């Protein structure tokens, strides 16, 4: 048995049993962060805080929500909104956070793409991050079903129909996923389970993996500089803080991180209190009706770009293009053939590739929102082709890039 001595304090008592000093050193005070980074490096903490808001608001919503096709709509729109004290606050926090979390995820992703933070040992950070993106997408979709309004029902109908795989007509699979011929009680119950238990569990595990993946390669920096973290840490610990290129994660870096989080939260609560309506589709305030399709079905803004890649093609081609769009970001570390992990601005052609991709995705998002007719239809079609084309040329663009 390990040797224990009489504790001199509560701290010592815990330290002997849980090694809290070592834990603190490894996780916080001697976890090193480069100095040359900017506010975009705070997005991870912004996401963690937003996830915490989703979790807490979700717990309170869960206490009154009824996963039943006859009761769900009223339990949200009447019980939670009208009867429960501050129920509206939890709902608006939950709805706004679910939308804003994707905005921050996209900023976080494009920061990584811009600075090349997905290669040279950082592949697992990128891959675990992409798995988180998929898990958050599934979480957002399953949550969207729960108020059981018209958009919930018809989004559920359309998205589950994707699993018939177009020309393969796997209607049996669609019915299996739904547990019914159309979205009904079985469907609502199982998506409720996914939303409140299975997917959040997966997200928590993936967050652990994402943080763990960061541990050995450390975070990138805005100059693409390769830092010898051991040497710089030694310098710092020896007292030469000014010349060391790194700082402690806690409290030094965290103080800056939380400053950004503070500014973000002002913006966040401005939306919650004054502009929550952007996250609440008016069509979803009509109860689900299986015999009446809303005139214009569109997903939430954060899915519009991939929806627009599905839409302009015939069913099978559209599904293949859509599947391509869903998985292609996973392959980024392997399609980028250049060894340079530096900002896009110093990478020649890749600079233009980056901005073309960002602008194309904004165009796809805008076109996904408008009805599919005339000029918009054409713009959407060419933007979808551009998206696919950009990915096809990426290996060639990066292969001939000069090593910096």
């Amino acid at each position, binding site marked *: 048995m390990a040797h224990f001595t009489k504790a001199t304090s509560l701290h010592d008592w815990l330290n002997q049993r849980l090694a809290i000093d070592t834990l603190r050193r490894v996780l916080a005070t001697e976890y090193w962060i480069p100095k040359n980074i900017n506010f975009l490096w705070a997005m991870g903490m912004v996401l963690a805080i937003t996830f915490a808001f989703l979790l807490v608001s979700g717990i309170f919503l869960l206490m009154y929500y009824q996963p039943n096709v006859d009761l769900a709509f009223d339990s949200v729109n009447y019980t939670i909104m009208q009867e429960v004290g501050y129920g509206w606050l939890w709902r608006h926090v939950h709805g706004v956070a679910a939308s804003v979390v994707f905005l921050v995820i996209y900023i976080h992703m494009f920061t990584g793409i811009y600075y090349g933070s997905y290669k040279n040992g950082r592949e697992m950070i990128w891959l675990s991050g992409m798995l988180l993106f998929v898990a958050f997408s599934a979480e957002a979709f399953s949550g969207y079903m729960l108020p059981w309004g018209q958009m919930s029902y018809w989004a559920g109908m359309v998205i589950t*129909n*994707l699993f018939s795989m177009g020309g393969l*007509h796997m209607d049996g699979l669609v019915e*299996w996923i739904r547990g019914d011929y*159309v979205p009904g009680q079985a469907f609502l119950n199982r998506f409720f389970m996914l939303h409140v238990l299975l997917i959040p569990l997966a997200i928590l595990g993936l967050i652990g993996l994402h943080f763990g993946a960061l541990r050995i390669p450390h975070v990138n920096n805005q100059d693409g500089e390769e830092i010898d973290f051991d040497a710089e840490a030694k310098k710092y610990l020896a007292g030469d803080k000014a010349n060391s290129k790194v700082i402690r994660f806690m409290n030094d870096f965290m103080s800056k991180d939380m400053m950004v989080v503070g500014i973000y939260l002002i913006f966040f609560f401005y939306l919650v209190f004054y502009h929550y309506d952007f996250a609440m589709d008016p069509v979803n305030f009509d109860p689900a009706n*299986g015999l009446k399709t809303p005139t214009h079905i569109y997903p939430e803004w954060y899915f519009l770009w991939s929806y627009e890649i599905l*839409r302009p093609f015939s*069913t099978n081609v559209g599904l293949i293009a859509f599947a391509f769009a869903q998985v292609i970001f996973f392959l980024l570390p392997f399609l980028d053939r250049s060894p340079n992990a530096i900002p896009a601005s110093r990478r020649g052609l890749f600079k233009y590739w980056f901005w073309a991709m960002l602008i194309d995705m904004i165009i796809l998002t805008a076109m996904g929102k408008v*009805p599919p007719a005339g000029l918009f239809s054409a713009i959407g079609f060419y933007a979808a082709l551009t998206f696919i084309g950009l990915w096809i040329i990426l290996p060639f663009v990066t292969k001939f890039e000069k090593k910096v």
Partner: protein
Amino acid sequence: MKNNSRRGFMGKAFGAVAGVGAVASLYAMKRSWDPLPSVKAAGFTTLDMSAYQENELVTEKWRGKPIFVLKQSAEMVKKAQENPKDIERLIKVGDAYFMVSIGLCTHLGCIPGYDPDEESFLCACHGGTYDYTGEVTKAPPPRGLDIPPFKIDGMKLVLGEEGPEYKKMKETGVTL
């Protein structure tokens, strides 16, 4: 060495037991997600075909899905007869012809709307169109509106049962 092979055997034995258990529990999980028998047995719908008006779309309900019934006018039947693909889609009950189909767009399952002046259906989700027999006239839908299993019984139409007319439609590929 002796120990190692013993541990190796124990590991393999555990692997075998766990493998059987994993397959068995996956099967149980799959079955738990299957539609319930009460859902699957969700009966049959009988329609009285003498009650419909010409060129007036009526939406019935079968297994939770909307069913379009459109009685064809003499003019529409004449037009349909010129095109074998169109006339094959119609169901003759008594002397009248009907378009009966599942009212879900074959693209991604939205409900198309009917315009009696244009005699055509438009799906607002992705812009697909169908003519008055339910045949597709503009992509993205890959095929015409699906026809539910039916059986003609005098002036009545039983949905959910497969009559000879429906079986013929399936064989000739008029519907899936």
